[in-house]
């Protein structure tokens, strides 16, 4: 019998005690844990090795990639993943090829994705598995698999897709600010599935409404996987609303927050977030001009369609200590239930607890003299309980110190902090800011869009024909000097 060299004892177990199944792969012997194999292989009753007519080199590459995830695989990831499907090792291999949990303070630029034709990104949609749907150029969509292999590129009928979301498992919801309707495409087959229009039989002026923003749907582990899609529609006479669309029938089910759109306070929201646990929709609109920024944030109750809370800047309500410093961007951290904004003048971050909103719920945090870039043109994105803020001079991340609750830090001397702790509100002392990028990174251009997906942060910059992928890494990346 031939030597069992290459993979002998290969899978014999990370988990130890499972029964080993002998496989003869093209003349080489492998022993793998039966429970990890696909059914057809593990159920083979023969006591001797099961013969499989496959390439043994690929299986040993798969096994070594699973056992030692840090070393680069010998074959392209796409080929290994295809082969792993046969053995039932796909999920294990994908987990081994995926980056470690994303922490902004330890993340670095891992790779750059550049589509082959017209590579300027216009919209991003990342999924929880780390895959990316990218709209670029004149209405093209490219789908990158969780291993960041380019799987498909196709042309939509839109001339420029400006809003995009992924619907599991293979649907993309696309909208354009220049042509009407919300469109659903199957991104694996490149096929148009359906279109949704805002129509109102009682008002004939509601016609050819364009889509400004689509809500990020709750992650896949949320209780209600059939929660509606929310999208803001705007007519050519600026009247706008938020439509709730059933994800199964792809028909509008509800109209929320219809407004005239003639003033800044009623212009159509550029960001919508669905707060599933609270039954609310967050909508924010920002407009900027020669006189600075102005905008509003609103929370709508989905069932009643009423405004629960709202604030608008400049002006607004309450004893705002930040008069003349309106927000440039705002986002909600759905897990933490905290609303974040970035101030346009000072570049400070404001946080508001969604459970105790009031006239002036903001707690302000400043990144100090480092954040000299201000908040003009800032983009704010909440992901994995971290707040990513782009500035003129770089990409900043705000993370919370978890140890604080355990009293590791003695905050007794700081009266303000104690007061906040007692009221169980937001504690600005538990936040730390750090730069994610280096100075060279920020010279590539101002960040336009950010989107978290899986353990990755996807970043696009003005005038850059590519998408940057930021990941935490286990690799030291030592540079040999000899």
């Amino acid at each position, binding site marked *: *019998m031939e030597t069992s060299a290459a993979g002998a004892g290969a899978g014999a177990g990370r988990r130890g005690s499972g029964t080993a199944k002998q496989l003869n792969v093209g*003349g080489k012997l492998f022993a793998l844990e039966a429970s990890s194999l696909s059914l057809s292989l593990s159920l083979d009753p023969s006591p*001797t090795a099961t013969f499989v007519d496959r390439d043994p080199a690929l299986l040993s590459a798969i096994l070594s990639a699973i056992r030692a995830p840090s070393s680069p695989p010998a074959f392209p990831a796409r080929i290994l993943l295809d082969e792993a499907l046969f053995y039932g090792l796909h999920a294990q291999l994908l987990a081994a090829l995926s980056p470690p949990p994303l922490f902004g303070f330890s993340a670095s630029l891992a790779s750059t994705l550049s589509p082959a*034709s017209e590579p300027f990104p216009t919209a991003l949609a990342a999924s929880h598995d780390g895959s990316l749907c990218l709209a670029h150029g004149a209405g093209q969509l490219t789908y*990158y698999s969780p291993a*960041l292999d380019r799987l498909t590129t196709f*042309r939509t009928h839109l001339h420029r897709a400006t809003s995009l979301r992924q619907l599991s498992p293979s649907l993309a919801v696309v909208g354009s600010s220049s042509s009407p309707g919300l469109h659903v495409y199957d991104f694996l087959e490149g096929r148009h599935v359906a279109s949704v229009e805002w129509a109102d039989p009682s008002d004939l002026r509601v016609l050819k409404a364009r889509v400004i923003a689509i809500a990020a749907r709750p992650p896949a582990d949320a209780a209600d996987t059939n929660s509606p899609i929310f999208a803001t529609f705007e007519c050519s006479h600026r009247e706008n609303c938020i439509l709730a669309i059933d994800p199964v029938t792809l028909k509008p089910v509800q109209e929320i927050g219809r407004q005239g759109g003639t003033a800044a306070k009623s212009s159509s929201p550029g960001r919508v977030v669905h707060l599933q646990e609270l039954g609310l929709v967050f909508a924010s609109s920002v407009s900027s001009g020669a006189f600075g920024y102005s905008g509003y944030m609103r929370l709508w109750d989905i069932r009643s369609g009423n405004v629960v809370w709202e604030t608008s800047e400049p002006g607004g309500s309450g004893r705002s200590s930040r008069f003349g410093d309106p927000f440039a961007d705002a986002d909600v951290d759905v897990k933490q239930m905290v609303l974040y904004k970035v101030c346009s003048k000072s570049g400070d971050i404001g946080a508001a607890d969604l459970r105790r909103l009031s006239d002036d719920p903001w707690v302000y945090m400043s990144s100090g003299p480092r954040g000299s870039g201000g908040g003009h043109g800032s983009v704010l994105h909440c992901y994995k309980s971290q707040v990513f803020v782009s500035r003129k001079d770089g990409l900043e991340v705000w993370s919370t110190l978890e140890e604080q609750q355990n009293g590791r830090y003695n905050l007794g001397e700081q009266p303000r902090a104690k007061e906040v702790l007692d009221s169980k509100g937001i504690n600005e002392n538990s936040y730390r800011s750090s730069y994610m990028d280096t100075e060279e990174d920020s010279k590539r251009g101002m960040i336009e869009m950010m989107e978290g997906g899986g353990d990755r942060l996807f970043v696009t910059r003005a005038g850059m024909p590519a998408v940057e992928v930021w990941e935490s890494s286990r690799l030291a990346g030592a540079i040999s000097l000899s």
Partner: protein
Amino acid sequence: MASTSVVTLNVGGELFQTTAATLSRAGASSPLASLAPSPPNAPHFLDRDPRLFALILSFLRRGRLASLPPSPALLAEARHFALDGALLASLSPASAFSPLSLRPAALLPLTGRVAPSAVAISPSPRTASLLAAHGGVVTSFDAALASRTSVLTPLPAVDSLVAVSPALALAGARDFPGVHLCRFPGDAPATASEALSWPDSPSASVLSLAATAASEPAPQWLFASFESARRNSSAVVAFDLNSLTPVAEIGRKEVFGADVEAAIPPTKLGWLAGHSLLLAAGSHSGPAGMVGDIRLWDVRASSTVPVWEVREKEDCFADVAASDSLSALFKVGAASGEVFMADLRRLGGDGIGVEPWVCIGDEKRAAAATASRRKDGNNCRVECYRNWVFVARGADVEVWSQVELTSEAGTKKAMRRNWVGNGPSMSTAGSVEGTMEKAKIVSWAFGGSRMALARVDQRSIEVWDSASGATSVQL
């Protein structure tokens, strides 16, 4: 190893096991196909390199190579097992062609000082070998872009080049007589000693060439558009490529007196396999503007009366192409530079005088440009490959794809345009395209998963591929 169909091989001392079914995929001509099942204790012995054999066996199992591109040693090993054809065909499959994924993949340098004047790719399903004519030399590159063979033709320069198969190419020139056959037999030196000519006028020069597809049941034909040396008569002659004899003379025209526009010789030929139609188009530019004729011939029905013809006066075509899968003709207007489409199923049905062309670009701009007699479409080319229409504008390539919209009322189709690659707007350093010098496209060809470009004054062929190529750049 209870299974009886398992074949055990001892290749250079290393044992391999596979099934007879896998080995039979190598084809009847391969020595591997005849190996019978054998037990592990009595393996077949092959005196070959086991490392290369592992790759060959992997290719037989999966139908493609795991690591690209193949080394010359692997290609030689594949030749030994009579697998080189299948291996080369798997490198550039036509099914992997996607214009929006085309990336510059290789530059093929050419010898000598003459820039290439024509490129061609032999059609699928055969191996997509690539041909280039530079001066009077025709060079053939294999599908792996690893080796090349050149042959000297009697022509001083080649204007039209058609690849019929990896072993046969046809070359013609505008000012010199005859279609010259360039043969590239794999095992013998390449030759270019035979020529085809118009029987009625042996000195006639060749304006354009087109060949029927090899996949059709009928014998393969070659169409050549000839113009006599005195430029007073022209015809399209069909040759049978097996017997190399002329079989038909189509649309013969004679010029009497000064009425040149009555008999414009076709300068562009195209074959529509699905409809069995020959497209022949020619234009003439005179003091009164540009005039052109587009004709569709059903070769088997009539060689004197075309199925459909149109005389182009306003916004005459700069180039025309026909698409089988889209069932349409496409033209670029010489004045407007916009792309027009004519549905083949509607041609002639709606009566005389109906404008067949529908502008799929900017209609208003097209009308304005035509009225002001601009020449925006000069030097534009149009070509159809699979489901896409390509337009070369100067140094850049534009692609039109068909988008289908499903809606309650039914299916709506629309043509949408994009640039292949970055397009003209961008000139970033750092990207692969940024480093390449962009000059006007002289000739282009599509085949397999590739697009080949010849640019003015550049002594190499640019190959764009959508099958291979890194998707993400690791930093």
